[in-house]
């Protein structure tokens, strides 16, 4: 496909400015050998789904909450130190299995979440009534089935039982399909976060407070608070 036609097609899904950023990110990763990265997230807020008993049970899938020693997570394709870091933050991982084999998972945490792709701490508010949901994975062979709905409904039931009314998540601004999918969950985009990483340097610009942040130390992490509801 001609480059211009490809640009127009991508821009139709994610907008011209994000398409330019996407192109720059690809060039930066290629030229910088992975040391330079451009990341942009849309921050979305979605309601915790209403109870749907038939889906909460998980159909023919075995649904459970994993701990860091769960053998199912060994097949999740996530580094063990990342999984350990998530559990250390208090995150929970809802796992679905079919005949003992991993079929999909979904993570959430009621409280702050330290992003593992860039150095940002996301804080969903109001405290106790908003959760951060992240890293939803459904194995390809189950994507044309009910599994995502089972995971979402079961996680929703757990969160509702804790008094949580909304979840907040970040999705890549370069992923039109994910944005459309979240829209079908009733998600609304409430802001964005742009991050430029160059070696150990990190520059962040966001529509939320603190608006921008520059750091070099791996220990420096801006705190981005997102109010999901009043």
């Amino acid at each position, binding site marked *: 496909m001609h480059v211009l036609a490809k640009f127009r097609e991508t821009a139709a899904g994610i907008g011209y400015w994000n398409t330019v950023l996407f192109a720059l990110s690809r060039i930066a990763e290629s030229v910088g050998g992975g040391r330079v990265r451009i990341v942009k997230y849309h921050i979305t807020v979605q309601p915790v789904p209403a109870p749907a008993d038939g*889906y909460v049970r998980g*159909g*023919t*899938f075995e649904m459970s909450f994993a701990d860091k020693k769960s053998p199912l997570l060994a097949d999740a394709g996530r580094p063990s130190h990342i999984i350990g870091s998530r559990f250390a933050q208090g995150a929970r991982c809802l796992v679905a299995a079919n005949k003992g084999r991993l079929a999909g998972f979904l993570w959430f945490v009621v409280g702050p979440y330290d992003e593992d792709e860039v150095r940002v701490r996301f804080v969903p508010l109001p405290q106790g009534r908003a959760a951060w949901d992240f890293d939803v994975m*459904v194995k*390809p*062979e*189950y*994507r*044309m*089935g*009910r*599994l*995502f*709905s089972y995971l*979402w409904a079961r996680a929703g039931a757990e969160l509702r039982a804790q008094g949580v009314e909304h979840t907040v998540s970040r999705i890549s601004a370069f992923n039109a*399909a994910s944005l*459309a*999918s979240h829209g*079908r*969950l009733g998600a609304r985009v409430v802001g964005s976060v742009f991050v430029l990483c160059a070696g150990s340097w990190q520059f962040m610009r966001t529509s939320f407070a603190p608006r921008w942040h520059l750091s070099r130390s791996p220990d420096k992490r801006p705190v981005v608070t997102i109010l999901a509801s009043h």
Partner: protein
Amino acid sequence: MEQQDVVRSVLRDVLSLGARADRLDRDSPLLGAVPELDSMAVAGVIAAIEDRFGITIDDDEISGTTFATFGSLVDFIAAKTA
């Protein structure tokens, strides 16, 4: 209404395909070609099919091949209702 017209109607309504639903023929690819048909929307399609045809679809009966084309989906329902 013919069975495949009912399937077409389900896809139009659940996925909001509009006039694109009218252009679906047996060979029209669904999976990967209809962006609206993703893992979040498919449960709604399955529920609507169960409702419209009065059938029950078990989790292990459906896969990507069921939704490969419009024709494969119509054939699946025809087999279930036979």
